[in-house]
């Protein structure tokens, strides 16, 4: 067997005096600590045992999920809540493959995580060895970068590069695949003097001329709209966004991932746009003369039919990723760089403008087309539960969701006001994300109130992680919006497949009983009158807690821009009127 050990003599000859010689596993742990890792997630297996041996007494808070996918989502939730890099470990083959969904999820939502995977011995690679999978091959299209480290001498720098790449520029997941023999091979540690990659120079500041042009366009505009995505949260640029919007007097709409970047309690907030966005946000975008996109990527769920999207607008696009610009729409004023810097500079250049006609029009839309549901219904409306959760928690909770109708209602009926307080799977739309992401967020913010507003089917996918929450005393609260359906799928079947509810309802367990069996607290709520008290009880609970709200089964999410329709062609607005 070829040993990639570098000889101690060789190194001392280079006169690299004091730094010790360590094994690959020790180097990994030391370098993780050097990079600021104090919490990580992961699962054991044969080829990562040398690493876990060194983690035995390392000063790292280690959380074992019940499934590696959960571990990846936990690292993701941890990163989103904290702004730090999340870190997850898995063994080779099945362990690495189980990470895949979590990695793709982090990729789509630009979340910085570093994944360490074990690999079979270097000399066995390519031989279909036991638990061998081509991990770098499998994850190449779903990572920002990945690498297999076959020489222990490259290990330390590769880990440093991984963290650097994960968190700079447009963040994303980075995977390092480490054969087990590299974990036991020895090598001298190297001092950390930064990372320098020839092909990677993320642009930090925006071009000043572009910033000036953008500001001038805003000053000239009669009907501008700020369209804000998750990039503003990633860039920690919410303060700068607020300063700009208020100084220039521009209304703000956000994407799903942008929720929390702008305080929705403020009058100039248009709330969310897109397929299930508010009518006033969608109308404003369709009628604006200038659309200022910040850290958003003109996703199809946002734009509707691209050809008729914001038809009379000029586009400013501020983004750290040059490839995002003019990918889906043609942008007149691109500004590549860090949103925090660019928004700050732009604020200096913009002037206050009254725009009375524009704000009057918006106020009119807001009055005519507010978000609505049947508040008089005796049944538990899902929207009611979410409103009550908002009433009971206000600015205080980190809200996490699964994927489906409950996710859309949570984006509509919870008033998001702070960045990093709404965590949801936007780009990939991964059911099962909610609970593990909430656990990760709780691990990042032990004192925070973390609530996973989940769907019954979404929760089913990863509910084994309740056990993880119990074991590590992470008191997450799960509110299941239990409609007994894959509700979002059922809605599409109702609207587009003649109400043929093909295979879209599953038999659920009694979730409260499951929670209790796992050692958490379980509650079931099937009367509207009990919703408030159940929430109050849940909030007092010190343990992880699952509350199963049996909601109206066939409620729909409105308004809705059907696939292929323009943003202003929303269905469901008349339903609102009949309720008025």
């Amino acid at each position, binding site marked *: 067997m070829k040993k990639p050990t570098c000889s101690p003599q060789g190194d001392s000859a280079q006169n690299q005096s004091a730094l010790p010689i360590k094994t690959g596993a020790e180097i990994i742990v030391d370098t993780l600590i050097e990079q600021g890792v104090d919490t990580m997630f992961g699962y054991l297996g044969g080829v990562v045992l040398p690493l876990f041996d060194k983690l035995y007494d390392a000063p790292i808070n280690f959380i074992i999920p019940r499934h590696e996918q959960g571990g990846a989502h936990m690292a993701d939730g941890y990163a989103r809540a904290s702004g730090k890099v999340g870190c997850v470990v898995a063994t080779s083959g099945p362990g690495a493959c189980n990470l895949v969904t979590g990695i793709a999820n982090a990729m789509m939502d630009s979340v910085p995580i570093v994944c360490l995977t074990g690999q079979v011995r270097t000399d066995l690679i390519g031989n279909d060895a036991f638990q061998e999978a081509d991990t*770098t*091959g499998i994850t*190449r*299209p779903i990572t*920002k*970068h990945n*690498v*297999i480290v076959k020489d222990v001498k490259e290990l330390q720098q590769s880990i440093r590069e991984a963290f650097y*790449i994960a968190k700079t520029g447009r963040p994303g997941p980075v995977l390092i695949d480490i054969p087990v023999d590299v974990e036991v091979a020895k090598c001298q540690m190297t001092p950390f003097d930064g990372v320098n*990659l*020839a*092909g*990677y120079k993320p642009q930090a500041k925006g071009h000043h001329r572009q910033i000036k042009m953008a500001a001038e366009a805003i000053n000239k505009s009669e009907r501008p709209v700020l369209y804000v995505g998750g990039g503003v949260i990633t860039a920690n640029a919410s303060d700068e966004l607020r300063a700009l919007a208020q100084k220039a007097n521009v209304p703000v709409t956000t994407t799903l991932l942008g929720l929390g970047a702008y305080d929705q309690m403020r009058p100039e907030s248009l709330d969310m746009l897109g397929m299930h966005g508010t009518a006033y946000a969608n109308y404003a975008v369709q009628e604006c003369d200038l659309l200022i996109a910040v850290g958003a990527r003109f996703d199809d769920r946002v734009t509707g039919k691209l050809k008729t999207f914001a038809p009379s607008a000029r586009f400013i696009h501020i983004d750290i*990723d*040059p*490839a995002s610009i*003019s*990918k889906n729409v*043609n942008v007149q004023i691109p500004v590549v760089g860090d949103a925090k810097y660019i928004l700050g500079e732009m604020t200096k250049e913009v002037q206050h403008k009254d725009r009375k006609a524009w704000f009057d029009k918006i106020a009119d839309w807001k009055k005519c087309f507010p978000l609505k549901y049947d508040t008089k219904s005796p049944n538990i409306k899902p929207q009611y539960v979410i409103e009550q959760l908002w009433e009971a928690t206000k600015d205080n909770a980190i809200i996490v969701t699964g994927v489906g109708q409950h996710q859309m209602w949570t984006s509509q009926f919870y008033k998001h006001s702070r960045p990093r307080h709404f965590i949801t799977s936007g780009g990939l739309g991964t059911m099962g994300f909610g609970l593990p992401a909430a656990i990760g967020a709780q691990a990042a913010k032990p004192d925070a109130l973390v609530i996973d507003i989940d769907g019954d089917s979404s929760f089913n996918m990863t509910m084994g992680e309740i056990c993880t929450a119990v074991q590590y005393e992470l008191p997450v609260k799960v509110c299941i919006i239990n409609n007994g359906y894959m509700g979002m799928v059922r809605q599409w079947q109702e609207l587009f497949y003649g109400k043929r509810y093909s295979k879209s309802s599953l038999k659920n367990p009694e979730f409260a009983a499951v929670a209790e069996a796992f050692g958490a607290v379980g509650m079931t709520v099937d009367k509207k009158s009990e919703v408030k008290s159940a929430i109050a009880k849940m909030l007092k609970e010190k343990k992880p807690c699952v509350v199963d709200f049996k909601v109206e089964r066939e409620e729909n999410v409105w308004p809705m821009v059907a696939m292929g329709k323009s943003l202003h062609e929303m269905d469901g607005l008349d339903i609102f009127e009949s309720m008025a």
Partner: protein
Amino acid sequence: MKHIISALVQNKPGVLAHVAGMFAARAFNIDSLAVGRTDDPALSRMTIVVLGDDKVVEQVRKQLEKIIDVVKVQDFSLKDVIAHDLMLMCVHMPPEKRHEILALVEMFKAKVVDIGQKFVMVELANSEDKLEAFIDACRPYGIKNMVRTGTVAMGRLSQPNAPEGQ
């Protein structure tokens, strides 16, 4: 529209797969792809001929630049570039056609690299249209076999930023 994109990449395993995979995943059309070493052993050069309008090619360039192991990307418009393919071709050459074919080889500045009883192997390195013209000229005699590399390219020296572009 045809564009020639030249990418300087880290000479590491997986980089070719990454680039090829990205093209497939984003539904870009590759006409040809040639990879080879450079004067720096740590770097390779990929020359990629892509089909698409300016918008598509712009995306190709940006997506390539996004790959960490891609160091530098250039997009050559066709007039600023020397772009050559290398071709080896076996042509049927009965004795009575020998003169004609060899004259053709001379005319196209091709080279005879091997000769057999019935066939001649010819090498030609030139621009794509020259290669196409040569193929057309040889076709009547019967082409037995033909291999071509993808295009490799270098910016013309008359370009303002040429030295850097090499």
